[in-house]
């Protein structure tokens, strides 16, 4: 808003500068804008309520402990890397604490600090999953990258891109899928999926004969899979898909595909 005014009315700005009171007002508004944004983004403070928490020199358990923040001390959280948090104490000593230790603090309102930790309990709160699957596409190696939006505990939407590279041809396809997980509360849980997309198949360059060029067909998919919550933030997925490519020939092409891979979630 300030910038717009500056651009649109050079005359007005001039006036504001000539009148020291106006100028001060302008400056104050500007500073207020800066400080409010700083207030909302910075200073995440918590108080240590257990005897002490250990601060490491780096964001992993192997890094040495360089300092401890004692009970009653206020710490400020600066940033997060995986499940490690960089903090600064009131004495301005910086270090990394693990998430389990950060949960031994409480906020200014006396609430225990509890953040999303990727545990199975917080797994159902995820919104997005993404990952990679490798497998066999009618016997040739394939690679899939996918992203899921978890709409409800049971239903999610998926977009995936697959490339299958064989000796005779290469195929690329994308699918938009709806998935249903019947028992989302189980660690090992089956799911079914239905999808539509398009497939592009191209014969290898050294086999190209006249008339045998790249073709694109619509694609329908029915799938069955299981996902397993293996570790924090980490899932393993096994999938079987039955694909129907609607070709311009007399018969549709049926493709079977097996895939195994992993996913991470937020």
């Amino acid at each position, binding site marked *: 808003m300030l910038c717009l005014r500056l651009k649109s009315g050079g005359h007005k700005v001039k006036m504001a500068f000539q009148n020291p009171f106006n100028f001060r007002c302008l400056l104050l508004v500007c500073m207020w804008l800066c*400080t409010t944004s700083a*207030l909302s983004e910075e200073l995440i403070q918590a108080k240590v309520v257990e005897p002490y928490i250990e601060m490491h020199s*780096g964001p992993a358990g192997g890094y040495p402990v360089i300092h401890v923040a004692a009970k009653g001390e206020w710490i400020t*959280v600066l940033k997060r890397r995986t499940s490690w948090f960089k903090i600064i104490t009131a004495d301005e000593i910086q270090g990394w604490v693990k998430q389990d230790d950060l949960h031994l603090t409480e906020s200014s309102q006396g609430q225990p600090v509890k953040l999303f930790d990727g545990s199975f309990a917080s797994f159902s709160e995820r919104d997005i999953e993404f990952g990679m699957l490798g497998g066999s596409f009618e016997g040739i*190696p394939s690679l899939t990258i996918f992203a899921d939006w978890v709409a409800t505990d049971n239903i999610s939407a998926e977009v995936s891109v697959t*490339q299958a590279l064989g000796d005779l041809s290469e195929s690329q396809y994308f699918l938009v899928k709806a998935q249903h997980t019947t028992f989302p509360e189980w660690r090992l849980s089956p799911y079914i999926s239905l999808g539509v997309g398009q497939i592009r198949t191209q014969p290898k*360059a050294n086999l190209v004969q006249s008339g045998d060029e790249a073709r694109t067909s619509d694609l329908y998919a029915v799938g069955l899979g299981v996902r397993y919550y293996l570790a924090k933030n*980490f899932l393993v997925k096994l999938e079987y898909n039955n694909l129907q490519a609607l070709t311009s020939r007399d018969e549709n092409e049926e493709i079977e595909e097996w895939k195994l891979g992993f996913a991470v979630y937020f």
Partner: protein
Amino acid sequence: MEVRFRSLFLVVLALLNSSSLMAQEPVKAGTLIEPKVTRQDINEANIDSENFELGLLVGVISIEDFSSSPLFGLRAAYHINEDFFIEATYGQAEAGETSFEVLSGGAPFLTEEERDYSFYNVSFGYNLNGETFFTDNLVFNSATYFTLGAGSTDFGGDERFTVSLGAGYRLLLTDYMALHFTLRDHLFNSELIGEEKTTHNIEYGFSATFFF
């Protein structure tokens, strides 16, 4: 400028604190004290989370039978936890000539377009976290890591399924900036110079990345 805003911000904060202190009344037994200043509870979204890494890659790739060439690319990673990460790499190079082409001076095997070599891969990585001591006082966090991945290589007019094995060294100059030295082998089957065989294409890479 930032320093000025910070100091101003601290002054404002100090004022807020002192005014809230002054506003406190003596506590009487049995009276309920309503807090006058409501502070924001810890909001997870305000914590700057730096799990993604993005950067540029330069290096040299030795393309089997087609000599070595400079390589340029992009590297992105997502850190799952302190031990594991997922990495995606894209690179481009232009293949040279085979020794046969150089010695015989005959017709080239590939056209100029077919000599364009590009690849992508998605890998799974494991960190061996550590520290690097350049001198007694100059210490950086670092990690040696191993990667295993799959992807595709576009070379000689075709795309080929490619497996990649690698090892790297990550030096964290700051919390958010890192230098990488990597050595990676890209394996794919090729029949470009006759019989089909598995080719090993070794890449030496140097990359600078930022965490965000």
